[in-house]
């Protein structure tokens, strides 16, 4: 059966529109391509060290 307290925890207060816009402007997002580029540059550095 549904656990009320557990389910209630999933509901978070919403943001007002002004706050959300500001957060969007300052958000730092990392995606898979960033990770790939980072890994590749690390590999190149390692080869360079050797």
């Amino acid at each position: 059966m549904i656990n009320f307290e557990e389910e209630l925890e999933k509901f978070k207060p919403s943001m007002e529109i002004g706050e959300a816009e500001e957060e969007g402007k300052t958000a730092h997002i990392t995606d898979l391509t960033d990770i790939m580029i980072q890994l590749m540059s690390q590999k190149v550095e390692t080869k360079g060290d050797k």
Partner: protein
Amino acid sequence: MNCFQCKSRLGEKDICHKCGADNSMYRQIIYTSNRYYNAGLMKAKARNLSGATESLRFCLQMNKENIQARNLLGLVYYEMGDADLAVREWSISQTIMPNNNPAEKYVRELIEDSDKINTYNNAVRIFNQSLECIKTGAEDIAIAKLKKVITINPGFLKAYQLIALLYVKRNEYEKAEAVLNRCLEADQGNIVALTYLSELNRAIKQKKKKKVGVAGKQEYNVRGNGASIFSSIDFSSYIVSALCILVGFLLAWGVLSYVSTPAIEEKAAQKQETKIQEYQTIVSELSEQIDRKDDKIELLQNEIQRLEQEIEEIINSQISGNIEKLIENGVDLYEVQNYEEALNNFIAAYTAKDDEPSPVFWAAECYRALENKEKAIEQYTIILTKFADSDYFDQSASTLAELTGTSKEEIIAQYQ
């Protein structure tokens, strides 16, 4: 598609003709991201908004610069009543692509419409207040506030979910069901609403079963005759129904397993393969890291060895410097006939470095001057035995001959 490194246009080949970077992995990521975008678009068109957000978020985790996906995600959020999340996505979209971006129009239209913003912000405030009310146990007030939220912003799906949860808690299942159905009208794939509804149906069935049980008992009591109840039940129809259900279940299970087993197995194999690949990548990364660390350790060990040598050299030079000073001081003291002090200097020098003949010789001279014949002979003998090649040999032999009363030639013959 552009090269991830130099941003120049890529042809069909994975290797960039300008900078030579290998774009094969990058291309795969971008293609997968696009596939998720397409899935998100399909789901959004079918009004499976929750499913669409899931696909689009996955798409953006792969490629954050997929502007179309981000703008669509904003629209889907907006449709779900989450205007805050929508604006957030559109703002990010504008930051990534400031020019010719439809997101700019979406945000501008929303912000310029002050009535819309006020309505939305008002609904948000009341929704947040209702959450606080629930925490303090004021559920009646919370329900009233949530109803108001839905009136102000009928697209606010979180409000529907929360009100349904409250109804479930109060065992008002029919009301909860109605609210959840309204939520599902707006978003057919709303996982929260679907989960609540399935739990709800289970609870309603149990409730009905209990009712039937009670009614049956009442009937039995009304008849007042335990035997007569059996006559009212048609056993043959029960058995047939049970058999039909059993056969149907077996058939369904058979068909399902026939159809789904290979697919499941294939999926599991694919999953396993992906996992193995992931682990292999991790292992190779780790082994590379270990290699790098080994190299570093070797370099550090060499450095330590070099420093140890340097320290040893410094210590040795300091010791030899000190010994020279001790001998010089000793000779000075000897010359002013302070033999005891001079002797201390020579003994200290010999103790610090026992492969040097001069402190031994000078110690012997001091003993002789102090008329300690025995010790003087002992020191001269050391010169003759241990330092036979030194410049002090000849003089030591002469003095020893003098002290022992033998000839120098005899002594030389004895020790050479």
